[in-house]
């Protein structure tokens, strides 16, 4: 088995924003391995966005406050690096893509970040071609932002950060403005990036069912504390999940219910298709 490298590490980390003494993150200990696909959930206001801001350095560089403990990204202390420098390691896609497309055309917007880090023209050319292709947005290249749909805008937002070749891609509620179908396509696209380029991914998403087949890790945050953290298959089985505002997908809830009723399956099924296959096998077996 290949050795796993830790790419993000929180050590005894706590944070509160300046101007309020409420601890938003409390004694966080967390490590995320390279290539992980992490689903981060929790009720709104529990500190998910705050946690993410600590990874790309917006905290403490843009938002100051009481900062205790350490956050290490790719072997370096976040507090010693500027957000700018971290931008080439951590790509951050925000909830509203409208507010992260600055330029008048898709191409110019992708180039914006690359110009900022001072790449030469040839490198910009090749990254531009690569990212347009990787995200399947070649046809949008010269379009202005107001001609794009929400789903397309979200892709362009990813293109802008992906072109910087980060090792980590963070997405904070990226599908909340998308319709279910576009949201699913979007999640599959992210999975593709994770698989193809070994990108480490952290997604905050309320529609958990979109990610049960995609993410391999799941972290549940509540009131600034990590409640569950581990393999998605293990965490998602937990019966107390709904106490933390997590929308447990019906297949999972059903299996938990059946378990209470004494019906034990040898495996835990994450999607309806696999579960119904198993039920069918059982029923036929019983007959």
């Amino acid at each position, binding site marked *: 088995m290949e050795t796993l490298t830790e790419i993000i590490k929180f050590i005894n980390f706590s944070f509160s924003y300046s101007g309020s003494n409420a601890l938003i993150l409390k004694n966080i200990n967390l490590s995320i391995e390279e290539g992980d696909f992490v689903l981060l959930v929790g009720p709104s206001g529990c500190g998910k966005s705050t946690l993410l*801001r600590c990874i*790309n350095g*917006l905290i403490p*560089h*843009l938002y100051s406050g009481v900062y205790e403990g350490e956050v290490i990204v790719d072997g370096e202390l976040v507090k010693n690096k*500027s*957000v*700018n*420098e971290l*931008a*080439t390691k*951590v*790509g*951050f896609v*925000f909830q*509203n893509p*409208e*507010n*992260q497309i*600055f*330029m*008048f*055309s898709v191409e*110019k917007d992708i*180039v*914006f*970040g*690359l*110009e*900022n*880090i*001072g*790449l*030469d*023209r040839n490198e*910009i050319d090749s990254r531009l071609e690569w990212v347009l292709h990787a995200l399947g947005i070649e046809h949008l290249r010269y379009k*202005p*932002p*107001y001609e794009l749909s929400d789903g397309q805008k979200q892709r362009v937002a990813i293109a*802008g*950060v992906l072109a*910087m070749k980060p090792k980590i891609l963070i997405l904070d509620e990226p599908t909340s403005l998308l319709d279910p179908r576009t949201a699913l396509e979007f999640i599959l696209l992210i999975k593709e990036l994770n698989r193809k380029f070994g990108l480490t991914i952290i997604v905050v998403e309320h529609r958990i069912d979109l990610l049960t087949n995609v993410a391999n890790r799941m972290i549940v945050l509540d009131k600034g504390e990590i409640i569950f953290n581990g393999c998605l298959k293990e965490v998602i089985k937990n019966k107390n999940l709904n106490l933390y505002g997590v929308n447990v997908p019906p297949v999972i809830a059903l299996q938990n219910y059946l378990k209470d009723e004494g019906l034990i399956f040898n495996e835990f099924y994450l999607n309806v298709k696999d579960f119904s296959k198993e039920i069918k096998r059982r029923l036929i077996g019983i007959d």
Partner: protein
Amino acid sequence: MFWLAEGLVYRRQESIIHSLDPRVKLIISLSLFLLSLFSSTIFEFIILLSAIFLLGVLSKVLRRMIKTITFSLTFVIMIFAINLLVGYDLIFSIIISLRFIAIISSSSIFFLTSSPDELDLVMRSLHLPYDLIFAFVTAVRFVPVILLDAVQIIDSQRSRGLEIEKGNIFKRIRNYIPVLIPLIVQSIIRSEELAEAMESRAYGFSKKRTSYYTLHFKRKDYFVLCLNLTLVVLFILLIHLFHL
């Protein structure tokens, strides 16, 4: 609200003029602007305005150019009336009014035929500080977004029973408060998100920012530039040598 800016706002179109290098369009606009500023006879203005309208026809923006002019007609009439009232003669008042029209319409040539994108390129080619260019670009980029926010807020406040077009002028101004407050709050939130996104895209990362986009004159740009220069010289010579 929208019609107000309509005359001056760029719309994607194709024409011989549109396809020119934006610096050439700027120079044409600027030459006509300067000539209008320094012209002082009705004859000169007839030539200048004919040239401007000819450009309007060539670039297929004549109708919107005229719209801009009609929009500024109130000012023209005011200028005309004030000049007459303070005792200038009729000819002089007409000339001042014509000059105003020529200035407005000549500058509209550039804005009607160049996209904000091209304006960005022109500013880059002038080596203006990038902070300034970025401020301009984002301002233009987000004007329609914020206008849309405003429209949505007005709609939602209306659906809650707010009657904006009711009462006298002071009442009407007061009616806009429930629109303005959420709009300001929303814009502040937006600007915070923009700041986060800018940082995350390495804005201000290094002193030596690459300039990926540069403008290059094509053959037709050189040709039009020469033509423009010739016509300007011809115009000046004609006026001053022959005292037309």
